[in-house]
């Protein structure tokens, strides 16, 4: 069975600063994908960043980057230069290879960006 754990229910960061959200997972699979999804208040959940487990290089998308540690089964999200629009619930998710769009989600981290 796959499990995803986000140990930080809520975090705050000042605008323009950097914040890191933690995620760990447990799986016996070797091929899989990891995701961070963002859900702004009363809005759709949208994909922030995706990481293929077979790639050693950490994924980056503009101000968002991950620190993927496969051996440690850790997948943290770093948000640089935080903006007010980054305020949202962030979900870490796991997907087995070829099990497309069947996600195992963490419980989420609520991020508040303060002006």
């Amino acid at each position: 069975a796959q499990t995803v754990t986000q140990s930080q229910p809520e975090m705050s960061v000042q605008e323009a600063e950097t914040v890191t959200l933690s995620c760990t997972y447990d799986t016996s699979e070797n091929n899989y994908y990891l995701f961070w999804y963002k859900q702004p208040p009363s809005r759709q959940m949208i994909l922030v960043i995706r990481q293929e487990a077979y790639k050693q290089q950490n994924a980056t998308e503009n101000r968002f980057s991950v620190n993927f540690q496969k051996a440690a089964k850790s997948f943290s999200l770093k948000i640089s230069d935080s903006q007010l629009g980054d305020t949202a619930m962030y979900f870490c998710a796991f997907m087995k290879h070829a099990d497309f769009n069947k996600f195992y989600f963490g419980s989420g981290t609520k991020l508040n960006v303060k002006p």
Partner: protein
Amino acid sequence: EPEVTQTPSHQVTQMGQEVILRCVPISNHLYFYWYRQILGQKVEFLVSFYNNEISEKSEIFDDQFSVERPDGSNFTLKIRSTKLEDSAMYFCASSPRETVNTEAFFGQGTRLTVV
């Protein structure tokens, strides 16, 4: 930008009643999903649907649940006889295809409250 839309945003129903949650996926998408999140718990996969039939379902998706694409645009989740424990946020998602690089697009969710 195309979005997955869900109606209603909040539904209150009495225990034992039937409820239908509605979703309009993005128009050229072929794969459809329902997830749910009980308050304070993780987002969980319920069912995937393709070519007018269920592709996969979780153990949560028992006989009281059904899905349908009645008219080529809507994708519905029916709960036949609601229980208190069905109270949750229900998310619909859609995807144009199921390959490693495709993204699932989520709706904003329907909060179901069973009283």
